[in-house]
């Protein structure tokens, strides 16, 4: 993340071999409603993989399905080549998939420290522990005895990230970190991402705020009504293409009309 063009160059080198997390042709439903249609993606070690899209595009469903909270209709999810599609969320955590859920979902009656202790109850061995989370978020140590429900939204989001980190995940899923938070707080929370990456955590995030996603992502994936409209590194993708992939404007980018444009799933030139 040092200079704008360096990560992209790294990615070209590294994005080969077995992906750390692979989603193959995933289709998922909410009752009768189809939320995801044939979505595939590959996350490689060191990626900050951002899934963008409008409200109801299926972003959160995708993340919940990867974490095991939602059962897909068809398709498969692989972690480091091993199929985890049928596994419960708690087994996936042990395998290395942790998630910061939308709305933070802390254990409100538990203290900050107890939330982190629950997070580390079934942790994999690794560099993260409660002490290191306190170093990452320096305010937290002094307020570790406070009930999570009494914290502000931004503080709760930090505890939620800490709770997922202490499990020492290989892939960290972040669902709508910015939801309901002031822009300054959002920027501060996203400011911790480089530290996580340096510690070897790979990040798959869902973000409605496209500019925020573009600031941090090494790879973007746009969903529109549950289907992929754009996938690739953010460099070299024009704002117009992102906009059309996001809103589904006809004749441009992924939504190819008869008159031109590129077919879906095509990667932009790198």
């Amino acid at each position, binding site marked *: 993340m040092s200079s704008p063009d360096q990560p992209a160059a790294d990615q070209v080198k590294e994005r080969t071999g077995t992906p750390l997390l692979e989603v193959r042709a995933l289709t998922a439903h909410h009752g009768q409603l189809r939320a995801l249609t044939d979505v595939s993606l590959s996350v490689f070690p060191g990626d900050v993989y951002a899934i963008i899209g409008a409200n109801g595009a299926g972003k959160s469903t995708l993340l919940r399905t990867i*974490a*095991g*909270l939602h059962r897909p209709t068809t398709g498969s999810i692989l972690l480091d080549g091993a199929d985890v599609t049928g596994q*419960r*969320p*708690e087994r996936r*955590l*042990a395998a290395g998939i*942790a*998630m910061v*859920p939308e709305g933070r*979902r*802390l*254990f*409100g*009656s*538990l203290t900050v420290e*107890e*939330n982190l*202790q*629950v*997070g580390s*109850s*079934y*942790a994999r061995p690794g560099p993260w522990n409660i002490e290191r989370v306190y170093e990452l978020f320096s305010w937290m140590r002094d307020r570790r005895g406070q009930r999570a429900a009494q914290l502000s939204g931004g503080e709760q989001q930090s505890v939620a990230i800490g*709770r*997922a980190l202490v*499990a020492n995940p290989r892939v960290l899923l972040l669902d709508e970190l910015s939801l309901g938070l002031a822009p300054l707080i959002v920027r501060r929370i996203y400011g911790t991402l480089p530290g996580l990456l340096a510690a070897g955590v790979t990040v798959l995030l869902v973000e409605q705020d496209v500019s925020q996603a573009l600031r941090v992502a090494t790879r973007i994936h746009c969903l529109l009504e549950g289907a992929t409209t754009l996938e690739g590194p953010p460099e070299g993708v024009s704002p117009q293409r992102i906009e059309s992939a996001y809103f589904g404007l006809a004749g441009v980018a992924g939504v190819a009309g008869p008159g031109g444009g590129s077919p879906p799933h095509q990667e932009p030139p790198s």
Partner: protein
Amino acid sequence: MSWVNAIIQGILIGGLYALFACGLSLMFGVMKVINLAHGDLAVVAGYLAVGVIAVTHIPAVWSFILVVPIFAVAGYVLQRTLIQASLNRGVLTTLLVTFGLSVVIENALLQFSSANSHSLGIGHLVSDSFSIGPQISIAYLLVAIFVVAVVVLLGLQYFLSLSRHGRLIRAVADDREAAQLSGVDYRHIFGIAAGIAFATVALAGIAWGMVSAFAPTTGTDTLLLFAFEAVVIGGLGSLWGTLAGGIILGVAQQIGAQINSADQFLAGQLVFLLLLVIRPQGLTGQQSTT
């Protein structure tokens, strides 16, 4: 002085009611299961104690050593099988299933035993007492049961707030899905909570068998009602509220009996209804925000 005596007796019996109620409160607080078979389970524990005493010839007072562990295991197994299966089908289903369980238990007891009432004979211990002044006589047994109830509540409090599994129980009660994302198998945690609830109800059932008598239908027509009232008076989810609820119920009953011996349970019911009107969230409960 007879009024003071009534209040003291009420406080002591209130400990027993709290012992009945804490398991009910725990199961509702953690898995949102309203266990309508709770009272029947206490009666089953009584019958099991009778059986254990007959087979092993241990003194009735010590029957809990075998009955309580059996109940803890049964609670875990029942939660992981029947109750979990009903939970997967919605909260209303658990109500129907535990109601069905209650009917099955009562009829099975009638089938294999009889409608006659039983009690756990503990000889002179049941009547041994000490006196304060001319009119107040306190049974050692009631004092012992009250102490056991307080110790159980203290232990439960300690376990829930300080142990690793207690922490996981509270986490699962707060947010089951978020707990899963932290690697917690909530079904296992539910099983542990049910095991604890069953252990406490077994203890309460045995204590009841010593101070009073039980028949196959005692579970629903008396014990379940008392447990519910103690929980509602005290406020859901609070252990000490449950103790306060049990004591208020006990004192109301004793004072009612003092006025007219036929009105003992009526007085308890009236106080329960009164509190439900003026403080529906219970003594320790928070005002509902929804």
